[in-house]
């Protein structure tokens, strides 16, 4: 039986969770984004006009990673000093309920301010809430992006 988290729910709350972690050893900003599988399929369908995704099943479309990367590179962006930083695709983990997508930004300057945008799924759900946790060691701070507020300016390390 296929199982969708909120298919029958009276609470169709739309949310994604992104965990951003500064890796001081590698001087990189690592990003793990968790997206509900049904939301992701809807967004991919809306973008590509195709609906044969079958994510996390035996019939999963070939190159699913590619489609997801193309989509997320439109919705998740990091800018520092007026330059868009390259988010390198690391991979994805597919589960029936949720898909985890992994990126990293190499040679990241943690002591300079940067802007990040996370407008994932806002084009399909106006009530989408994207939660972003930023971790530096044990410290964390959290930011919500939504239709009213797609972009945040933050600084991870104050010197």
């Amino acid at each position, binding site marked *: 039986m296929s199982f969708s988290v*909120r298919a029958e729910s009276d609470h169709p*709350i739309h949310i994604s969770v992104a965990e951003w972690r500064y890796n001081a050893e590698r001087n990189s900003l690592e990003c793990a984004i968790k997206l509900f599988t049904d939301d992701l399929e809807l967004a991919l369908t809306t973008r590509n006009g195709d609906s044969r995704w079958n994510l996390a099943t035996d019939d999963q479309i070939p190159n699913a990673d590619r489609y997801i990367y193309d989509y997320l590179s439109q919705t998740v962006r990091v800018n520092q000093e007026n330059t868009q930083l390259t988010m390198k695709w690391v991979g994805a983990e597919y589960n029936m*309920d949720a898909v985890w997508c992994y990126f990293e930004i190499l040679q990241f300057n943690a002591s300079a301010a940067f802007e990040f945008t996370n407008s994932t799924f806002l084009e399909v759900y106006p009530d989408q809430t994207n939660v972003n946790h930023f971790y530096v060691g044990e410290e964390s701070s*959290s930011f919500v992006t939504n239709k009213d507020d797609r972009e945040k300016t933050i600084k991870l390390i104050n010197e």
Partner: protein
Amino acid sequence: MSKFELYLKLGTEHILDINGLDHLIFMLAIASVFSIANWKKLLIMVTAFTLGHSLTLVLAALHVVSVNMELVETLIPITILLTSLVNLWKKGREQHTIVLYILMVLFGLIHGLGFSNYFGELVAGDQDLILALFSFNLGIEVAQILVVLSILIIHIIFEKIFSVKRESWILFMNGGVFFLALSMIIG
């Protein structure tokens, strides 16, 4: 913002969500039979509900429970329907308080199940799980208190200014809740 603020906010939004009216109309039914003089009992009712609700969320976050959503989504409006029926029948007469508190915990458990898969996914892997659970449930409690307080105030306004009798108020509120719950079950 801190994680505490974040989950507190998400908890209140969960209750005040205009797309998920089940919580609001349940609180409507619960608060309709109370007057401001009985606020302590109402507060215990609300807190008992939050306790039940948070217990299922804890179990969900620890991946102890796995839920048949269709069953839960039918059970939730049934609890609302039953509450409105009991209110219409009792018309605000004194009821066994302990029984009510236990029922509220039970209903809280059921309502929590409707949200448990989502919540489990929201906090899965979060290293501050206990903080997340605490602040999310605190958010739920705060929002519910705001809701029942608003209903008590509206009740006072209707009673004092429009001279609406208590029985008419209970009939009006629970009649509305009954039909809303019924439409949730059928629809």
